[in-house]
């Protein structure tokens, strides 16, 4: 006989859900709804009034070359930094999992970068990558003019990618290591006895078995690279030089808070929201097919 635990009256269920619903409503739906409303109006910053303009804000943003430049920069940033952070973390986790000498130390140390606030690590990297004072000054002595993030947009983009990847290597590492350790030892030992080398075992056994983790981290990394990049950009480049690192999230901030264009910024954040939703759907539809859940 099947035992079912249900509430006698549906009102009790609703009552249990209410606190959560209130939280979600106050901190998500209400502000999001407000943003949608703002994006369809022209808001006076001091609250003196607003005018309904329909989709004009979206039209003017999408007609703006700077905005498309910002989208391109965000895509490049997301692609390269996610790739770097995941590959490096994967390699480090695979090595740590092989119980090489001192792996207990890496296990602890490699997690630290994720615990550092973005602005703090940006400040550190700004010093490390400063062309005249930091580590790169040495490189510039050997090849004068090699590194100039103040004027060269590619160098500036490289700086923020390095800083962001460095932070997320730590985060990805934790998940990869956990995934590797969840693989039964017997599988790997059996393969070893059959004579397969380290690389072979990695590609044929470990890699397929951790695809769910890889997929999870891919989604998280791409989403975070759109959102968590703000502190790094703000401290390291402020969107420059010549808008080369003006990522979407930074542009929203500077247009909205520095420029007091609340409506334009609201419209941009709606676009950013849809972009992230679209990217996530694409990932679930096309990449998840290759994922093997156990």
């Amino acid at each position, binding site marked *: 006989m099947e035992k079912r635990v249900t509430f006698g009256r549906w009102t009790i269920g609703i009552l249990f859900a209410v606190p959560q619903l209130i939280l979600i409503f106050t901190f998500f739906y209400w502000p999001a709804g407000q943003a949608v409303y703002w994006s369809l109006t022209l808001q006076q910053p001091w609250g003196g009034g607003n005018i309904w303009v329909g989709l004009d804000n979206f039209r003017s943003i999408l007609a703006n070359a700077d905005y498309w430049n910002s989208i391109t920069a965000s895509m490049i940033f997301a692609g390269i930094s996610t790739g770097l952070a995941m590959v490096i973390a994967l390699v480090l986790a695979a090595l740590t999992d092989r119980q090489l000498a001192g792996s207990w130390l890496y296990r602890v140390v490699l997690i630290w970068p994720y615990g550092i606030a973005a602005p703090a690590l940006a400040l550190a990297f700004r010093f490390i990558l*400063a062309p005249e004072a930091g580590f790169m000054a040495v490189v510039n002595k050997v090849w004068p003019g090699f590194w100039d993030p103040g004027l060269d947009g590619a160098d500036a983009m490289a700086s923020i990618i390095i800083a962001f990847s460095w932070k997320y290597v730590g985060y990805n590492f934790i998940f990869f290591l956990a995934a590797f350790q969840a693989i039964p030892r017997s599988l790997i030992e059996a393969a070893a006895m059959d004579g397969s080398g380290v690389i072979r075992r990695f590609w044929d056994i470990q890699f397929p078995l951790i695809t769910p983790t890889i997929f999870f981290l891919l989604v998280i990394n791409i989403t975070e690279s759109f959102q968590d990049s703000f502190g790094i950009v703000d401290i390291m480049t402020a969107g420059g030089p010549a808008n080369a690192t003006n990522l979407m999230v930074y542009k929203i901030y500077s247009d909205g808070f520095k420029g007091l264009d609340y409506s334009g910024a609201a419209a941009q954040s709606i676009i950013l929201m849809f972009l992230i939703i679209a990217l996530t759907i694409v990932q679930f539809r096309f990449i998840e097919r290759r994922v093997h859940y156990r």
Partner: protein
Amino acid sequence: MTIIKRGFAALAAGALSTALAVPAFAEPVKFDFWFGLSGDLARVVDTLCKNFNDSQKDYEVVCTSQGNYDATLQNTIAAFRAGKQPTVVQVYDVGTATMMLSGAYKPADKLMEENGYKIDYSDYFPGIARYYATSKGEMLSFPFNSSTALMYWNKDAFAKIGKTEAPKTWEDVAADLKALKDAGYDCPMAINISANESWQLMEQFSALHNQPIATKNNGYDGLDARLEVNKTKFVQYVTDLKKWYDAGLVKIKSKDLGQDMVQAFATGTCQVILTSVGDHGTVGRTQKEGMNWDVAELPVYAGTERKNSLVGGASLWVLSGKSGAEYKGAAAFLNFIHDPKTALFWSTNTGYIPVTKSGFDFMKSNGFYDKAPYKGREVAIESLTASEPTEITRGIRLGNFTQIRAEFGTQMQAIFANKVSVQEGLDTLVKNGDAILERFQQTYPGKTLP
């Protein structure tokens, strides 16, 4: 038990609210002042507030630093929308147009009049007063911390090329920079090309040469003003700066690269910089031991009739929606700041200049400008009062000017990175700047600047 406790709490709260409604004697009226300075300058403001509180016992000003100018304006707007705004707030020069259209202020001149203070507005240096006044000359806010841009030059380096005077024209500057380079100086002049330098490179330059930044007298005469820096003398200036940069006579120095230009000058790395008189104290405190340097007015092109330079800094706005008692306190506070003695205190402890003639005279009579650390700062007053302000040199009254400055930085970076030509870059600056102005105008339909 709990019911009794609650009862007591309610009684106490009731008593408290009646006490608040009827101000008791000897209990000073508190009001808030938000400002945008930080570090050393914030400590000076705190002392200023303490001096005010000690000087009388009817009012108590609570001064809170919001970190920087942008944050102060943002936080004030947020507070205003929530009905929790401070009584007095410091708003930077370029926020003036935004404030004037906000409908969120109480005109400073009316406030002073209502509370029985007589302020002689003609005592303000005209270059400072007109920047903040309406087109009809009414003072809606009080000038507070004020500065202007100067040229800092290294006397030791110039002595090596046989010069004892600072160059007065850009033609002379070009020749001197070349001579400095030939004399072995790696960095004859340092500039930076971010949004912040719009002030000395574009705005001050245009004022000195009586060149407009925008139509409608730089925006004073209407919200439909549009930029026109792509067809003034400014084009030649940027062309020259770029030429000197390519020839290695001008270097870009910024904090992101390792050393900002003030540090580069103070350490003797770079021989000429253009920056605010507000940095005079910093250079003096951090300079290389024994280095001889001085300040001079910004150069102009040969054959130019020099006009007054622009004031930079911020003014104090009194916000609407406060009680009569708080307004009385605010008026007393503004009157205190207006006092020449406060001007002396303020200028001694910061690099800012006095904003009134009486303040300046009081400081001169105290021998302020004769002694070593402050000597030279009078050049700022000379620069600000070089001429009676013209329709164009009284200031800039453009909406969302912060964003236009950001656009200036972006286009200058594109020009110096050889991505676009000088003319292309400035054309884009005008095009994007006009879009910002147009949007500002659309946000305030049917409104006009006072």
